[in-house]
């Protein structure tokens, strides 16, 4: 029946949804899958920048929905991976330009073309969010180890359950093992204690992610990046592989050893 439609959402803004979409898409595509990403944040598009494809946009998702171009024309091919595509959001429109049924139709058309459709949901729980989850077969909820982000994630999980989207899986993004150790940050266990859903990955905090986003080079393409490794592991788990969770303390102990030696 073709592609799986995967939506990444969070409730709260700024937790790293767009970065996660770009990295998971890159990781899946680098592994040989055909992937299309849709930027669901109409009016505030970012995914094109994070993927480094900003200057290639001709048509966007609203153009497809309103029939100004064919689907293929709006699929921007990635410059690194031949089977990775981006369908950008319209920047001059807003969320009301798209309806949930438009998204379902669009994704059904995409299912025949690719193996994965990854939708980047906007923050919030309003129209844009509803559009983004309408077509999803699976939903990943992304949160940071922060009280406010976790509460919003809880709200979103509740809505997803009420909409019969099934129980989503959780990505904890930007975990800083040093801060957790000092009890300055929620641990993964604290987060799971409240949200009580299945964990699919923990991404450690990594400055390289910001650099990568600014340059349009997702870190999942960098073999040495720890955050990149975490995203690659999530991509493997999405495909059903059993990948053990990374030892996040490994980096820490080396760091503290170096600091201690001085």
């Amino acid at each position, binding site marked *: 029946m073709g592609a799986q439609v995967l939506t990444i959402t969070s409730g709260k803004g700024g937790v790293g949804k767009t970065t996660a979409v770009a990295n998971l898409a890159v990781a899946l595509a680098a592994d040989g899958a055909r992937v299309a990403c849709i930027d669901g944040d109409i009016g505030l598009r970012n995914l094109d920048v994070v993927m480094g494809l900003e200057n290639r946009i001709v048509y966007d998702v609203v153009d497809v929905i309103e029939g100004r171009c064919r689907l293929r024309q709006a699929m921007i091919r990635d410059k690194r991976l031949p089977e990775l595509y981006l369908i950008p959001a319209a920047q001059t429109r807003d969320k009301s330009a798209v309806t949930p049924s438009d998204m379902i139709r669009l994704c059904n058309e995409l299912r025949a073309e690719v193996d994965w459709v990854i939708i980047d949901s906007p923050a919030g729980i309003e129209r844009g969010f509803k559009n983004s989850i309408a077509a999803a077969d699976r939903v990943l909820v992304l949160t940071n180890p922060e009280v406010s982000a976790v*509460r919003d994630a809880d709200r979103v999980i509740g809505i997803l359950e009420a909409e019969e989207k099934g129980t989503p899986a959780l990505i904890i993004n930007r975990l800083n093992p040093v801060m957790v150790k000092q009890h300055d940050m929620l641990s993964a266990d604290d987060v799971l204690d409240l949200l009580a859903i299945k964990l699919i990955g923990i991404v450690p905090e990594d400055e390289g992610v910001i650099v990568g986003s600014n340059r349009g080079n997702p870190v999942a393409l960098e073999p040495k990046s720890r955050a990149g490794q975490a995203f690659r592991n999530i991509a493997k788990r999405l495909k059903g592989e059993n990948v053990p969770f990374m030892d996040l303390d490994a980096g820490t102990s080396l760091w503290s050893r170096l600091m201690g030696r001085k």
Partner: protein
Amino acid sequence: MSDSNSLIEIKGLRDGLLVTMSDASWDESRAALMEQIETRGSFFQGARLALDVGGMVFHVNELSELRDMLSERGVNLWAVVSESPTTQKTSQLLGLATRISKPRPQEMTRPTAEPAGEGKAMWIGRTLRSGTRVEFAGNVIVVGDVNPGAEVVAEGNVIVWGRVRGLVHAGAGGDASAFACGLDLSAAQIRIGGVAAVPLERSGEVRPAKYFLEDGIVKSELWQSNQS
């Protein structure tokens, strides 16, 4: 449930609201529905709506327009029931249900009009997440947690077999003999009758507790295994 308005009939179902259209024209019925939603905002807010349109014929653009109109008003259209094959096909195309008999494990967040009684209790066998509000004119039993941002408002007692980090309000109708109890209420917001409680200071170990009114003040009692 429809009052002055006889163009549409609104009925509560286990899994949402059922709106039945009369024989009036679609424009009139739709206007009547929107008017009802506008005037009774809190009743419709967040509701799942099923629509029985009888034999009326709808095409995709009409139904999707209706769905968008409803969703802008915070109402979720989930089913359109019709005898017309065209309309049925349309609803399937839009991913709407065409039958409403499907049982659904949804919490009953709509207040029921039944009188509070000793034996009346609402059973909730799962965790209430942020944004969920449960109201009941009787006792409420939750087996699961009440997460921050979730609210349980009962005219009777509230009993939670789990952790409460949201709001529990017992005796919401003014019953001063109501109580709230739970396995861990240390981070809860508690109200009994019309009085808000100052939460107990957390002293290391978490213990089940019961909150009740005494002389107009909320008192608490920690459960102890060697007591009573």
